[in-house]
């Protein structure tokens, strides 16, 4: 049961990473990156490291997204390529 859950979360992680690389809008890329961090936190929680998962959820999904947003407001909106 846990193995199937892990495999599903791994697939979600890979999907989020590919979407975050492929998308043109940088705001959407930040949101997808936060979703990636959330999936990673779920993975840590399933594996058993609840403290690491908590830290990943707070810092990865919350604070880094917020700092990316603050940096994005100063630069141009669209990616170059």
């Amino acid at each position, binding site marked *: 049961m846990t193995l199937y859950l892990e495999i599903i979360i791994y697939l979600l992680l890979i999907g989020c990473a590919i979407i975050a690389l492929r998308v043109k809008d940088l705001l959407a890329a930040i949101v997808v990156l936060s979703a990636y961090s959330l999936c990673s936190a779920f993975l840590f929680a399933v594996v058993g490291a609840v*403290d690491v998962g908590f830290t990943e959820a*707070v810092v990865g999904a*919350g*604070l880094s997204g917020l700092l990316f*947003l603050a940096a994005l407001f100063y630069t141009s909106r669209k990616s170059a390529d």
Partner: protein
Amino acid sequence: MVKKSSSIIVGIVSRAIVPFIQLFALYVIVHGHSSPGGGFQGGALLGASILLLRLTVGREGSELVFPERMGTPMSGFGVFIYAFVGVAAMIGGGVYLNYAFLPIGGMQPAELRSLGILLVETGVGIGVMATMIVIFDDIAKGNFHD
């Protein structure tokens, strides 16, 4: 940069949700002995709640919660609490950061170590919270692009 958000729904919802985030962060710091959590996670949650206010309410409103000039002194104060607990253990007769020798009377060594962990986690929480706010404020204030 930080100007007031134009949408009224975002402002009211974030103002309503921030006290619960801060209460949960305090719970995470204080209850870190027996549940997952600790100083770093609780401090990051506190910082995230104040940054949410900075983004939505605006600088004038969030200055009341956490004034901007207090950021750097608070982050230094958090590290100072941690180091001072270690020095207090040295005063009590142990080695550095050995909480069993804290100079507080009438407690067993196990309880003293538990109390020392709580003090240290508080220091870490204050330091992390203030550092997150300092980083965001300096990025938002810099105007380095134009």
